[in-house]
Each structure stands twice: as structure tokens, then as C-alpha cells.
């Protein structure tokens, strides 16, 4: 399927790689299909909306920024996760040019069921963040 993106032009992609977001993402609730696009070097990928050319997020594994999530079972069950190996966690990252500030969006990690290609954003109350996020020992700057 040919999809249009504002950042990368037209892309021919196989629909089998699309990821279904049944509830969209807060702020973008109507967008239900995304695709992960590789991005040169580094741990980053783009999570691009399939049906909305302008919507794309920079995402990366939390471990690559030195973070690790402990995902409670009920949060995974939302997308039918019952095998730990089917789970993938990615976090959004934004960058403020003026302040040269890199912001990982720790309170809203994206959880994926890689077997069924379904995802959603788990929202964590800031008071509960410490319970679920910890510093990973291994920091990969690749």
C-alpha cells in the first residue's frame, strides 16, 4: 500500500507491518494505524501514522536512554499480552532546539503486542512513575 508522509514523502509498504492502535493515541484518537520506520543510525525509529501524513513520533527503546519499565500484568492484558516475549515497549522522545533539551516521554510509554501487532499508550500518573520506571544498568548509546 502506498502511504503519504510529510517527512518522508510517499512510501510503498506492506500492510502486514502496520500496527493497530484500537484507541488511537491521546491527542490523536482517530488515528488507528501506525507503522514503525527505521531511522539511520541510533536507537530511534519513527512511529508514522498510516492515514495522516503529518503525524509521526520519534520513539526508542527505554533501555537506550537508560530506563527500564516494569509493566504490570493488567496493563499488558489490555492488548492481549500474556507472553512476556510478545511485549515491546517504546517511548516517545521530543527535542527542544532552543534549549537543546531532549525529553523522553516517560509517563506515556507505548506498549506493543508484537505477535498480534496491536499497540496502545499506557499513561502513568507522575506519583506512580517510580514504581514502574527504573534506571537500567546498561546504557546503550549506539
Amino acid at each position: 500500500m502506498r502511504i503519504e508522509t510529510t517527512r518522508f514523502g510517499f512510501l510503498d509498504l506492506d500492510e502486514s507491518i502496520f500496527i493497530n492502535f484500537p484507541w488511537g493515541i491521546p491527542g490523536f484518537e482517530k488515528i488507528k494505524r501506525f507503522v514503525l520506520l527505521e531511522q539511520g543510525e541510533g536507537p530511534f525509529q519513527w512511529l508514522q501514522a498510516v492515514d495522516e501524513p503529518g503525524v509521526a513520533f520519534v520513539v526508542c527503546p527505554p533501555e537506550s536512554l537508560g530506563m527500564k519499565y516494569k509493566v504490570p500484568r493488567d496493563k499488558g492484558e489490555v492488548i492481549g499480552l500474556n507472553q512476556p516475549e510478545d511485549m515491546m515497549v517504546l517511548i516517545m522522545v521530543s527535542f527542544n532546539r532552543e534549549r537543546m533539551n531532549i525529553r523522553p516521554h516517560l509517563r506515556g510509554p507505548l506498549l506493543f503486542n508484537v505477535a498480534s501487532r496491536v499497540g496502545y499508550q499506557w499513561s502513568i500518573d507522575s506519583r506512580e512513575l517510580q514504581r514502574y520506571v527504573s534506571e537500567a544498568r546498561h546504557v546503550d548509546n549506539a
Partner: protein
Amino acid sequence: MLVLTRKVGESIRIGDDIEIVVTAIDQNKVKIGIQSPRHVPVYREELYQKIQEGNREAASMRADDLDEMVEVLSKKGRERSGNEDLP
């Protein structure tokens, strides 16, 4: 908006699979229990709004923002590994 009056222990049903129970009432606080299918995300409104804002900010990243961010990160990485070499 539909407004209903409920007492402690009474509940409201939305559709056939969501139940909202008033579990306790304080002077200016209401405790609410929500019984809903696992696949229905439930949020506190203010948290939902914060996440929305964060997501909109994240969606404003341009391709060259990412390039610059990668550069900043690798510079930081180099500084860090440089420091580790100090005695």
C-alpha cells in the same frame, strides 16, 4: 451532559459492560469504582490531558530535529566515555 444522583454503594451502568460505583463520599471528594473490560483504557481526566499535550509536542518533531538530537546524544555519550577514562 447527563447528570444522575447516586448514593454510596449505588452505581451506574454504561452499556452492558461498564459499571461505575460510588464507593465513598467525603466533603469534597468522591471515590469511584470502575468495573470495565480490560481493553477499555480508563484515565483521570487531568492525566489524559497531560498525555495529550505531551503527545502533541512529540508529534511536532521534524526529521532534522531528530538528526540534531542524535548529534547531541552522541556528543553526550562521547563526553561520558571521556570522563570514564579519567583516573
